[in-house]
């Protein structure tokens, strides 16, 4: 993973120096340097882009405030004076407009939700009463904050209550407050750092996308080859059986968020598949797995095969196995695969899975929800490929359709994901927030198209982006991005044909593409090199004639 240090501005009405220390010193990816804005000046810091903390284009900001500091009506309520709820909510709206303001100049903004120290609940029975109860009003304020912020694509509200719960009785320290104006104990800050780093990592496109699972004593209790599927420990009125079911349910919920599941198990394939198909308490069905390797071969090799099949790299993969020897083997041979230490007791499997902070995704697109289906369709394509005589015949029989669309609010989320996650077929590997991407595309000198690819086996969804910058007598291809899911079907040529078609309409002399190398985007370089002599390489740029048409491959139907 890239070791570039990111900068994060911390804005607060209390002392965040301890939090800043944890942010900067935390060894986990991504490295972040904290810049602390002067505390107690939240309003002016959020209003003024020229404040020193915003100089040098920070990557992110954490705006962590106490409710009574930024919402004066809530401060009144803390004195048990009555305040109309609407007054409180109006002030929340005003505060949100300040947050929206800074989201224009910071890529990602994190806003921890508001909390009150638990000792503030003097009148317990009134606490949840509307307009009187402090907790009731605070819950409404947080809800309003979250609802308002949903409109901005790069502001994220984080759940402070979770950190409070994790810190237990060390969450608040009156001593730290009175001596140093530090609201929270250090355990709260440590939990916050873990969550913010996980979120940031996800936003940078480093979330894990695949969980490879063992079967025996991992997905169920017992060795299926020895005891038979009827005697596996799974479900029923048995504490271990219930834990295995819960673990499978947790996996299924993660899969429903777009994370792929796969199997790597040392077993007879037929025996294992029969267990998956026939055991009545199996939560996970065969169609929940994007792939499997059930055999007696080395698991590390099986994982490599699965990753190749699913077009994912080791940095996208998590391996879960109850057997420490198998875990060690995979850790040693595939160091980039995340192999979490796994509890010996299956009762802790569900919580061990759900506490992994590596699946953070900033948004959820339609493609995420049907990802496993997309991979199963890919298996069918590959089966057809093996059955037909040539590549051309295979491509023709796929019946590929590419729909070209301009960027608009409905496809922005997925386009943003693609831009920020794609590494291989990516000309410039630029990373932009959704707001930045939309602003860029709306510039009169820019053109951006998305490509939606489908064939007779299914719809791969929005999987390509091509964009142009119009210059005097030429156009520059800025983004040339294609998901690895559809690479190798000459979609790249259809993308280039789209770009050149528009360049010709503009009547420019030349089209050029500047390749910016990264450790992962050599496939893009290879593609442009393959276009010679139509495109000539000069250093890291590829230059072509803007007047000469570029044909769309015959097997592709291009739809505008």
């Amino acid at each position: 993973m890239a070791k570039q240090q990111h900068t994060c501005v911390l804005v607060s009405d209390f002392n965040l120096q301890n939090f800043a220390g944890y942010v900067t010193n935390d060894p986990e990816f991504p490295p972040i340097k904290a810049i602390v804005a002067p505390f107690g000046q939240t309003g002016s810091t959020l209003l003024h882009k020229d404040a020193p903390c915003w100089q040098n284009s920070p990557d992110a900001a954490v705006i962590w405030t106490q409710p009574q500091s930024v919402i004066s009506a809530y401060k009144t309520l803390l004195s048990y004076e009555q305040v109309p709820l609407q007054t409180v909510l109006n002030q929340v709206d005003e505060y949100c407009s300040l947050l929206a303001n800074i989201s224009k100049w910071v890529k990602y903004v994190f806003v921890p939700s508001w909390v009150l120290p638990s000792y503030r609940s003097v009148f317990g029975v009134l606490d949840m009463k509307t307009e009187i109860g402090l907790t009731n009003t605070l819950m409404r304020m947080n809800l309003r904050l979250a609802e308002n912020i949903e409109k901005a694509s790069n502001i994220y509200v984080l759940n402070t209550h979770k950190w409070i719960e994790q810190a237990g009785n060390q969450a608040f320290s009156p001593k730290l407050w009175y001596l140093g104006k530090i609201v929270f104990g250090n355990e709260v800050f440590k939990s916050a750092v873990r969550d913010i780093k996980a979120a940031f990592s996800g936003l940078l496109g480093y979330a894990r996308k695949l969980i490879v699972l063992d079967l025996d004593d991992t997905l169920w209790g017992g060795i299926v080859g020895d005891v038979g599927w009827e005697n596996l420990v799974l479900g029923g009125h048995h504490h271990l059986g219930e834990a295995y079911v819960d673990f499978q349910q947790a996996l299924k919920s993660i899969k429903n968020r777009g994370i792929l599941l796969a199997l790597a198990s040392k077993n007879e394939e037929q025996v294992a598949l029969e267990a998956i198909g026939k055991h009545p308490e199996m939560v996970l069905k065969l169609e929940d797995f994007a792939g499997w390797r059930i055999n007696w071969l080395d698991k590390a090799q099986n994982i490599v095969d699965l990753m190749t099949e699913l077009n994912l790299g080791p940095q996208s993969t998590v391996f879960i196995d109850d057997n420490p020897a198998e875990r060690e083997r995979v850790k040693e041979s595939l160091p980039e695969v995340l192999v979490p230490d796994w509890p010996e007791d299956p009762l802790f499997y569900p919580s061990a899975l759900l506490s992994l902070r590596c699946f953070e995704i900033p948004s959820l697109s339609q493609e995420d929800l049907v990802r496993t289906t997309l991979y199963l369709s890919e298996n069918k394509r590959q089966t057809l490929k093996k059955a037909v005589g040539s590549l051309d015949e295979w491509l023709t029989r796929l019946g590929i359709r590419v729909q070209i669309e301009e960027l608009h609010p409905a496809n922005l989320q997925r386009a943003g994901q693609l831009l920020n996650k794609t590494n291989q077929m990516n000309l410039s590997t630029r990373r932009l927030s959704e707001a930045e991407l939309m602003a860029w595309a709306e510039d009169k000198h820019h053109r951006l198209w998305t490509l939606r690819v489908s064939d007779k086996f299914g719809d791969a969804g929005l999987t390509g982006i091509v964009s142009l910058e119009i210059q005097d007598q030429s156009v520059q291809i800025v983004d040339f991005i294609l998901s690895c899911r559809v690479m190798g079907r000459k979609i790249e040529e259809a993308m280039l044909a789209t770009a050149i078609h528009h360049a010709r309409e503009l009547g420019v002399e030349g089209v050029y593409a500047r390749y910016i190398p990264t450790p992962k985007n050599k496939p893009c370089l290879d593609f442009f090199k393959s276009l010679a002599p139509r495109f000539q390489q000069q250093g890291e740029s590829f230059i072509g004639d803007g007047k000469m048409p570029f044909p769309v491959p015959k097997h592709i139907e291009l739809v505008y």
Partner: protein
Amino acid sequence: MAPRENITRTLFNVIDELNQLRSTEEQLEKNLAAPLTGDSGRLDSAGLINLIVLTEQKTAEELGMPILLTDDRTMSQVKEVFGTLGTLAEYIQRLLNEKRDG
């Protein structure tokens, strides 16, 4: 009563915690003689607050005996008490002895 080695171990644990907040250049030594405060010390006022709170917390957790380091008696002799880890250990020992003797 907690022997002196236990107090030292607890203070070293406090230093480990404190160092998580500090940059590589500002790391504190686990050395009883190294100055903490004063002209040659590495702790600023924020660092001292953390040292005080963490020491109270860890003493209660690890030695089973709560102590108070924010009272007037301690605050009136900050330089003497928090000069080094050694002087702090000595002071904690004295507080624990007083507690034992009632």
